[in-house]
């Protein structure tokens, strides 16, 4: 795999902590100190697929590629506008591509799972150019009366165009099926035969358990993939992590023993955008002007599922 273009998109509206503190019992100081967020973008009329398509167009422009040259589109999301058609399918139509397209869901780790899936198509030779997207409208999965979750998440999309190459050095995907730490129940429908009771279809999260899982997986996964790639953590230009909570990133910095500036962070202005997060962070890093050919990046993510993933990318 070689990354040849990236892009990202945020909804126009940015919501500050002050605005949220007028809706639920919270404060700017608490959110900044506990989570590290000042503001997040929240969709007012942008759909998940529209955000995905905008990010995709930017990635294609950066790759200097026409949509017709794509062989595959994979979108990672847990907040698709519709069950069918998929976000990937709507993007295909919006950008004028004519290749297969499908969605994949592994919650916050989705973009990493999608990148790994893309690599398997590239290695098999059945696709040469793949558009990989992470897109979320998390705001539709939040209980806006729950101060412990509604302040954490944001909406947005990130995309990468990847082609065959030798830059995907190592990867690791991890799932621990567990419905007690992070859950987002789906609507049950109205079958007169199904006997379960509907629970609120919003994000519910055990913060303590999530924090422990995140720090442990992130540390283990980063060490595992760097070892697999035959490099050291100190060789990394950046760790590009899922932006869940600044405190998780700070803790991982300590555990991994790396300089804080090597741990990329943009949670302050976009919050936790779930599957979009690592894709958006990757775009920010690629456009920062701070990476050049030969540099090593580790992308890592963790979250609902429970799931986690990491990969080592060498810029070609």
């Amino acid at each position, binding site marked *: 795999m070689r990354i040849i273009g990236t892009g990202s998109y945020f909804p126009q509206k940015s919501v500050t902590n002050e605005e949220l503190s007028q809706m639920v019992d919270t404060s700017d100081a608490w959110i900044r100190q506990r989570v590290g967020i000042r503001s997040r973008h929240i969709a007012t009329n942008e759909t998940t697929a529209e955000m995905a398509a905008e990010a995709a167009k930017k990635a294609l422009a950066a790759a200097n590629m026409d949509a017709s040259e794509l062989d595959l589109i994979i979108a990672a999301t847990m907040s698709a506008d519709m069950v069918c058609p998929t976000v990937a399918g709507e993007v295909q139509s919006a950008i004028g591509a004519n290749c297969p397209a499908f969605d994949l869901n592994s919650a916050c780790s989705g973009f990493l799972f999608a990148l790994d899936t893309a690599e398997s198509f590239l290695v098999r030779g059945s696709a040469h150019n793949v558009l990989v997207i992470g897109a979320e409208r998390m705001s539709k999965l939040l209980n806006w009366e729950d101060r412990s979750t509604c302040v954490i998440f944001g909406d947005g999309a990130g995309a990468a165009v990847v082609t065959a190459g030798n830059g995907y050095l190592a990867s690791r995907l991890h799932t621990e099926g567990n419905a007690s730490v992070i859950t987002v129940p789906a609507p049950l429908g109205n079958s007169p035969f199904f006997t379960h009771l509907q629970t609120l279809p919003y994000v519910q999260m055990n913060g*303590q358990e999530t924090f422990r899982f995140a720090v442990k997986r992130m540390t283990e996964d980063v060490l595992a993939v760097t070892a697999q790639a035959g490099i050291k953590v100190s060789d990394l230009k950046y760790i590009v992590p899922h932006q869940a909570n600044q405190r998780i990133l700070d803790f991982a910095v300590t555990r991994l023993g790396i300089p804080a500036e090597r741990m990329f962070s943009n949670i302050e202005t976009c919050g936790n955008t779930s599957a979009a997060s690592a894709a958006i962070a990757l775009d920010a890093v690629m456009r920062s002007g701070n990476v050049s050919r030969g540099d090593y990046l580790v992308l890592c993510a963790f979250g609902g599922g429970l799931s986690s993933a990491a990969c080592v990318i060498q810029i070609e």
Partner: protein
Amino acid sequence: MTTEKVIAILASHLDMAEADIHEDTTFEDLGVDSLDAVEVAMEMEDAFGIEVDPKEAGTSVKAFAAYIDAKLSAK
């Protein structure tokens, strides 16, 4: 010994003087909330080389140190 180390970790985490934390100090006294508790538990894990479950470890310096000692002797 364990108690001193627990106090040192708490003091460093909360940016307080070690002299202000005693064996009988509770997490409530220190204003430690659930996120602090999990971070402190994980710092204890790193310091002592054991697994610390913040739900079982207690909420005072004394209880925390006793929990860690029990874990260490079971190792």
